[in-house]
Every structure is written in C-alpha cells, then in structure tokens.
C-alpha cells in the first residue's frame, strides 16, 4: 500500500480510530502488528513471509546472544549471515551472477548462471537493516533482548517506517511500544502537519520533477545536453522531495499515534560540505553505517589514510545497499572520495558563514547532483553519456510537460518552509493569529496539492530499495 494511494487515505484514519479506541497497550500492539502486516501484504502477500523470517531470525538471535553470552559472537554471526543471506539472494544474486559470468567469459570460461527472475520485496533493505541493528545492539549490550515476540515483530514491521525507514534503533522505538499513547491535540496536529508537508514534497515537487527527469533519462537518445543538464539538476530535488517527503509522512503518521521516530532529513541542501550533507541526508541510514560499519572498521582512530579508506569503503557499501548495480557503487565512491578529501584537508571542520558558506553549498550541491546522475542512470554507460552530453552536446533543453510551470512556485513554498525551519523563525502574533495562520497554510497546502500535485503518480523511489 502506497502512502500516496486512496487505500492509505482510508487505511490510516481507520487504524488511528481503532488504535486509540483500544484500552490496553497489548491489544493496541497486537492491532498495530496486524495492521502493519496487512499494510505490507498489500504489495505481495507472499513477501510477508520474508518479513516474518527476518523477524524470527533476529528475535532468536537476540535471545541466544543474551542466553549464551560465551558464544554470543557465533550467534551474532549466524543471525547476520542468515539475514544478509536472504537480502543477498533477493537483491544481489542476479548482480553477482552477471558479474561472475562476465568475469569468467573474459577468462574464456562459459558458464550459465541460474536465473530466478525474482521481484525485489518492497523495503527489504530497510527492515533487514533495522533488524540487524537490533541484533548488533543486543550483542554490544546496548539494548536487552526482547522477550515478547509480538512486541519485537511490531518493532520490525511498524507500518509507518516499514518500507522506507527511518531505520529505527531499538533504544528509541522499542520502549514506545510499552507506553499507552493518549490522543493528544498537539501530537495529532504536529503529525498531520508533517504528513501534509511530506505529501506536498512528494506530489507537488518530486513527481512534477519526475515527469521531466523520467522523460529524459528513459529516452536519452531523444535529448541533447541541455535536457541532460536540466534533468541532472532536477533529479536531486526529485529524490529529495520523494524521500524526505516519504520520511515526513512516515514520521508524521507515527506522531499522530503518539510515536516519535528519528529525524531522517534536516534540510540537506543547506549543507556547505559533503560531510555536513551526510549529517542532514538520510540520517537514519548514514548513522547506521557510521555505528555498525565505519566505527567497527576503525573509524578515524588509525590515521588519516586509514580513515579515508574506511570512509570510502563505508560509502561504497552504502551505495551497494541502495541497489545491485555498479552505478550505486560509483555513487557511493563519489561521496566517499568527497568526504575523504574534506577529512584529509580538514575542510568540513572549518566553520563558514556568509558568502563562503553559500559557495560551499553550491559545491556540495554540484557534487551531489553529479553523483545522482549515476544513481538515476540505468547503467554506467548511460551515466557517462549524460555527463559527456552535458559538455559536448549542448542545446536548447526540451520544454517538458506544461505541469513543470508550477515548479518555481512549489520551490518557493518549500524554500520558505526550509528557511523557517533552518533559522527557527516563529510564527508572528498571538494564539488566535497563529491558529488562523496555521490553518490557512494547511488549507492552502491541501488545495495546492489537489490542484497542482501529481496525485496518481508513481510510487516512492526508495520503496525499490
């Protein structure tokens, strides 16, 4: 079930009403668990078994680690291997097969790898990583193993963040399933406000940009360098609107029910260095990689060269997490190299203000936009064709659909909101004025989305990961 579908608009209020009507925490959790599985099974019922398998494996891994402390490393290895095995089979089998075949072919060995034509289960990378984080935290003693299977199952499958994060940490989310959340005006309104902004970002920005970006990237033959450049500039906004929009809907939906999920995006285009960008972009994933990959690799404790190596390795892995394609590895590599350079020359640590900060923002955006050409392209050749085309085949860009005309207005609205959040600007006036202003903005945003948004557009991009 997609967040931008009529089904979800019916599903979510119904879940909230029943959730708040149930008097006991256990009943609420049981209901949320059923609702979450129902939500997931709307894509492909059979894949709920994978979600269940991931849950069962990490649940017992957690218990075994705590019970047999002397062999906890072994249990963790088994748990991680099984989980990554499932993820690897569904996500990377074809990729590995293709690359092995190509490699062997180069060595004049002909071998036919089996082909399973698997459909990637929605959100498998997200819930697998969340569950792995739990197992590692239990191993490290950062959290204790959950005894109640159903509560743990809800932690893995909680529907607002199940398919595209934020990848939650057990310490934050698990305790919230023990509390009876009350229907509170402030929570509900804040959550609804975030959801509304999320929908605005997805429907009035991401999907509008997407119309242009898709028509260029899907028909590279038909376009010149001018169109490539516009598409390359629009795609960062598309993916930001799409993913940050999804995250806001997810965090907002949870907030309506009284749950606090972690922040996933903090106005990343205000970052003046790539390192800062990664403290603002997909925070839950970057902090996951920081805690469970970068630091165990040695972090920044073993000298500059080793640190740079660790950074590049972590970013390449992060790229591979996104998808089984060399384009994602190169995407990670670009960020890894950029962050390493900043670390090596201590660029990120210099505090900037005014004009130099603005220049930093532009450079950071340029690096991000360049990396996103690889992220969006079908293969490395296509990405190179786009980059090459921008410089060697200039021309008047294709004008795109007339709906693009609304983008400057949408960008302006978003910019006002981002500036207000970045500099914590409070709404003017007393309570009455603020009430009127806030509600007027809500009415305006709903009307804007209805009138100019792409309401029957594609699913969220990150669902495919």
């Amino acid at each position, binding site marked *: 079930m997609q967040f931008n579908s*009529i089904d979800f608009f019916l599903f979510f209020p119904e879940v909230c009403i029943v959730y708040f009507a149930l008097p006991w925490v256990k009943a609420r959790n049981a209901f949320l668990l059923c609702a979450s599985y129902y939500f997931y099974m709307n894509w492909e019922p059979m894949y709920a078994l994978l979600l269940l398998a991931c849950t069962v494996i990490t649940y017992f891994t957690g218990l075994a680690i705590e019970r047999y402390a002397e062999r906890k490393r072994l249990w963790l290895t088994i748990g991680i291997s099984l989980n990554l095995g499932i993820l690897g089979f569904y996500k990377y089998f074809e990729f590995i097969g293709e690359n092995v075949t190509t490699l062997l072919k180069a060595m004049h060995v002909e071998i036919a790898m089996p082909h399973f034509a698997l459909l990637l289960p929605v959100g498998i990378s997200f819930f697998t990583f969340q569950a792995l984080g739990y197992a590692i935290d239990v191993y490290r003693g950062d959290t204790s193993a959950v005894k109640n299977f159903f509560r743990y199952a809800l932690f893995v499958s909680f529907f607002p963040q199940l398919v595209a994060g934020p990848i939650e940490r057990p310490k934050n989310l698990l305790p919230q399933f023990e509390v009876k959340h009350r*229907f509170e*005006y402030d929570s*509900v*309104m804040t959550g609804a406000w975030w959801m509304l902004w999320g929908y605005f970002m997805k429907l009035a920005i991401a999907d509008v940009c997407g119309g242009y970006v898709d028509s260029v990237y899907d*028909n590279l*033959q*038909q*376009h*010149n360098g001018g169109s490539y450049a516009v598409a390359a500039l629009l795609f960062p906004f598309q993916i930001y609107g799409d993913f940050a929009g999804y995250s806001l809907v997810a965090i907002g939906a949870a907030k309506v029910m009284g749950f606090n999920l972690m922040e996933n995006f903090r106005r990343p285009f205000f970052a003046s260095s790539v390192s800062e960008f990664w403290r603002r972009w997909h925070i839950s994933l970057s902090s996951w990689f920081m805690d469970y990959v970068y630091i165990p690799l040695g972090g920044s404790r073993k000298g500059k060269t080793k640190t740079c190596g660790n950074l590049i390795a972590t970013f390449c892995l992060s790229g591979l997490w996104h998808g089984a394609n060399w384009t994602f590895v190169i995407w990670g590599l670009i960020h890894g190299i950029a962050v390493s350079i900043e670390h090596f020359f201590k660029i990120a640590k210099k505090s900037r203000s005014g004009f130099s900060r603005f220049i930093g923002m532009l450079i950071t955006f340029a690096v991000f936009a360049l990396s996103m050409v690889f992220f969006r392209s079908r293969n490395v050749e296509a990405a190179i064709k786009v980059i090459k085309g921008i410089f060697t085949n200039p021309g008047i860009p294709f004008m795109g659909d*007339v*709906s693009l*005309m*609304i983008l400057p207005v949408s960008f302006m609205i978003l910019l006002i909101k981002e500036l207000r959040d970045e500099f914590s600007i409070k709404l003017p006036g007393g309570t009455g004025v603020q*009430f009127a202003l806030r*509600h*007027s903005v*809500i*009415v*305006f945003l*709903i*009307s804007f989305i*209805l*009138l*100019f*948004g792409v*309401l*029957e557009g594609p699913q969220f991009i990150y669902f495919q990961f």
Partner: protein
Amino acid sequence: MKKFVISLLAILIGLLVVDRTVGVIMDNLRDHTMARKAFKIRKIMNKMDCDNVILGTSRAEDHFIPSILEDSIGETFYNAAMTGTENIFSQYAHLCLLLENNCPKRVILELSDKDCKDNGTRFALSHLYPYAGINEGVDSVLRNARNYPLVKLLKLYRYKGSSISYISGLFKDESGEAEAGYKKISPPVYFPDALIWVDITDKNDELKLHYIEKFIQKCREHDIQLIFTCSPRYRKPNPKLLDPVREIAEKHEIPFFDYERSEEFLKHPEYFRDRNHLWDAGARKFTSTFAHDLKQYIKCDSVR
C-alpha cells in the same frame, strides 16, 4: 478532543470555500483557454460541420494531417485526437462529447494494444474530470474509476490535471487550429536504431473490448461510418497483438487499416521520432498512404 474538532471544522470550511471559489474560476477558464485538450474538447462539443473526425491518442494526433486528407478525398477532416488520452475509455467519452452537437459522416479511430490489452493503464482520464456532470457518456466512463466520488465532490480534484495547462493556454494559443488539430512533431536528435521486440501482455482486457463494442454501437445509432486504423510503429511487429480488435472489426464489418507491419515504414527509421511516433516527414508520408487507401476504400464502398 474539542480543540481537534474545532481545527478539523476550520480546515473543512476553509477547504470548501477555496474549492468552490477555484471551481468557479476553473469552470470559466475551461471554457476560454486555448490549451490544446480543452480547446479540442470544446471544438468537438460545439457544432463544427466536419465530414470526418479522427479520434485517438498522441499517435493519431501526430500522424494524421487533415490538409493532406482533404486534398485527396475532397471532404473536411478534423484531427480530434489528444496526447495522453491513453485508451478506448477516453475515446468513447470523446465520441459522446462529439455527438452532443455533431454527426460526422465518418469517424476514424486509431487503435493500439492499449485499447484491448490489460496493461494497467485503464483509467488515466484526468483530462475528462472537468467535464464530469456535463455529459452522461463522460460520466459513464468516469464511473468505472475508483476516484469518481472525489471527482464529483471536489472541484479542486476535478481540475488537478488540467489547471496549469488551462492557465498557460490563456497566454499562448496551443489549440492547433491552424493545422485542424494535427500536431507537427520535429525530428529527433537521433533516429531509433534497431527494430526491437517489445513484450506486451497477451491478456485481453474485457472491459476495453466491451467499450470498443459500445463505440461501434454508438456510431451505428448515429449512422456514422466507423474506420479503425493502426498507424506505423518502429518495433518488431507482433501480428497477434491486435487480434481482438481485428475480430471485432470483422464481426461488425468495420474496415481496419493496419500499417503496423508495413514495410514502407519498418525499413525507414528516419520517419520516426521514437518507436511509437512519426515526426512530421513520416506523418506526411503516412497520411498520403492512408489517404490513398481510404480513397480506394470509399470508391469501392460507394460501388457496393
């Protein structure tokens, strides 16, 4: 809870006011804009005195040049096809709008696999939402879609796919009136390369086939001669793809001009903008071919 109810009420009342106000403005824009689809729909809804009307999607809009057909056949033609009006549901609604005030001699309907196969693009009908409640034929099509209640309820939603084009049509004449509805396409940066095989589902969509039958019935009721066409594409032809349409055409004795397998075009990628669309040079070549065939058909038909 009381505070929440007050908030909810304030939002609902605000939305209602905005919705009705925007509705009035948009209704007015719909009737005056020179945006392409709105203009074409307005044109076919009003009295237009045209012998032949061409219906279909972008492939028809980009491929049939009325002036060539007029020169060859000696009758008037209007290309009422519209880009993005994905399938037979839209075409049936357009026919209903056309028949409100017109009764052309002939309707030429461009068909493709999207009009008979289950390809998941059933109800891409947003360009018709502004006409909900105006024409029963349009409403009968819209009722098939799940969001019909929303279309009826909210004016904002009704204009969601059209608002920007309506506004842009106030400043720029995009009606295509000078070319009688034909959309002239410029050549591509690169012509399509090798002919490829495109996988398309074999599964027929029974509702779409039902609407083709309804389309035929409607034309019969108004004594309109119906002609099916399938213009060229640059892909490996799949002879079975349009079998359901062919069967219906045979059953109802409707001429079906199928150019999808025509060597005349399959050997000439330079006629194509992309795999599905001819550019202007290709459209001229195709229309001339079609005009010749249609003329022959009309001649034979009149002898019969």
